[in-house]
């Protein structure tokens, strides 16, 4: 991966902003405390997803944690830690005598932010929606007119049928729609970014934080962004749009539709992309070590059981699945623990 990366895409050696680092450390302390609730975990996930700096800062939490892995492999980690502590204490005493400085502690340098809990309006709306799925859940629903909708993981939509129109409002996640024919009532899907009108069709709509993604597998869909730009997307095409920008249609990735059958179909895509996809089906954190992020993946993987998918990946690729805590899983090079020579 890095060999073919452009100079501008090299990993940024600059440290993430201090505030992001501080927040990552705070989240770590909370989540590992033994007192974290499911709501804390969701809050952390929202924080992680809300800015790329947060992911970068969290990658340092992972890197620091990795340093401790070998200790867990010793017969008695507590004993190993105690002996290490005693060794450090003796060194500290000798250092004090040597330098006559009473410790080099950095307390007081670190100002801690008061923790701010971000309100989650999108999440709250989704809880009250007509149709919804939890993370990792996929479901098919039949709508009153015979239209079929498959809800992907963590999805919520409202159904608004009247005498003059059929309207779905996608609040969160992704739906695949196979519309039933009804010449009298147009079929719309609304998202935060614009409106889609089905023109006899099978298509999938995914709502991300900043944009909506549409892929059309049969028929055609008319897109109209909030700002008024419009285009007809035909079978075999996909587009991304925001309230005020409508991307150019690209060939649709047909493999993506497999989610409606509970499958993730990978044809030569990097492991990092597979992980990005799997994250949507899992709560908690799924990390991937940079050394293996570029490995190419082939195969069909079950989305309803992502643990099974991870097991399959570890058989197919030179990676191992490391469970740091129940909710925190990372994919690492298989030989890492055996050949590290840092």
């Amino acid at each position, binding site marked *: 991966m890095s060999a073919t990366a452009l100079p501008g895409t090299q990993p940024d*050696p*600059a*440290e*993430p902003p201090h505030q992001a*680092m*501080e927040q*990552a*450390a*705070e989240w*770590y*302390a*909370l989540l*590992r*405390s*033994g*007192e974290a609730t499911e709501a804390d975990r969701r809050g952390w996930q929202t924080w992680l997803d809300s800015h790329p700096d947060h992911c970068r800062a969290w990658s*340092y*939490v992972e*890197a*620091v*944690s990795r*340093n*401790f*892995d*070998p*200790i*867990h*492999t*010793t*017969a*008695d*980690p*507590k*004993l*190993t*830690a105690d*002996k*290490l*502590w*005693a*060794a*450090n204490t*003796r*060194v*500290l005493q*000798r*250092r004090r005598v*040597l*330098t006559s400085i009473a*410790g*080099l*502690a*950095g*307390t007081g340098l*670190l100002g*801690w932010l008061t923790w701010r809990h971000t309100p989650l309006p999108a999440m709250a709306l989704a809880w009250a929606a007509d149709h919804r799925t939890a993370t990792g859940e996929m479901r098919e629903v039949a709508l009153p007119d015979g239209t079929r909708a498959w809800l992907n993981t963590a999805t919520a939509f409202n159904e608004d049928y009247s005498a003059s129109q059929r309207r779905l409002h996608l609040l969160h996640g992704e739906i695949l729609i196979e519309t039933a024919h009804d010449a009298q009532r147009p079929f719309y899907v609304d998202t935060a970014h614009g409106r889609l009108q089905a023109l006899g069709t099978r298509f999938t709509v995914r709502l991300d934080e900043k944009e909506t993604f549409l892929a059309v597998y049969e028929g055609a869909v008319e897109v109209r962004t909030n700002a008024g730009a419009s285009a007809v997307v035909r079978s075999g095409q996909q587009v991304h749009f925001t309230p005020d920008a409508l991307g150019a249609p690209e060939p649709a990735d047909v493999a993506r539709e497999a989610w409606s059958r509970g499958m993730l179909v990978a044809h030569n895509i990097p492991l990092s992309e597979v992980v990005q996809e799997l994250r949507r089906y899992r709560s908690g954190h799924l990390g991937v070590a940079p050394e293996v992020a570029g490995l190419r993946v082939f195969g069909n993987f079950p989305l309803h059981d992502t643990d099974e998918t991870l097991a399959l990946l570890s058989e197919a690729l030179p990676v191992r699945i490391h469970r740091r805590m129940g909710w925190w899983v990372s994919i690492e090079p298989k030989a890492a*623990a*055996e050949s*590290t*020579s840092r």
Partner: protein
Amino acid sequence: MSASAYASSPSLETLYCDHHGWLQSWLRRRLGDAADAADLAQDAFLRLIIKPAPRGFGSHGEARAYLRTMAQGMCVNLWHRREIEQAWLDTLAAQPLEYAPSAERQAIVLQALHEIGAMLLELPPKAARAFLLAHACQMTDKEVAKDLGVSSRMVRKYIAQAMLRCMQLQARSTAIDLIAPNRA
């Protein structure tokens, strides 16, 4: 003072002649071992070749202050390396024979102990202790609080503080790796 001032920034050869003997005996007094002292004195001058002092030296006194600071750091590193090796040998000795890990595995653990030990030295002692217990022994805040005799709230604060500091150290060493991947 003017007698000990250098006319211009001295060459390494001058520095070696003026200070090597002094540095070696300074080290011998602190380390209590002539061979270690000779090694470290040699290392100190090697480091001056690889990475000269930023602004050169204007006087004997300046050169000695610089060498003394460097030598202090080297002494601490040497003690630390030996203490950690001893700690690991003690750990192994305290375990039943059937748990004996392979030589390769032992080297990995030892390397990790060196890195963690160095990281913990940079932390306030209570934060270091809390972090080690929490992370290496996977203890909950309540358990760590009991060990340290402080509140769980304090433990949470210590651990966040320690993690932040370690992240910053990690970021700094990652940046160095990226800039100079071939450093010895």
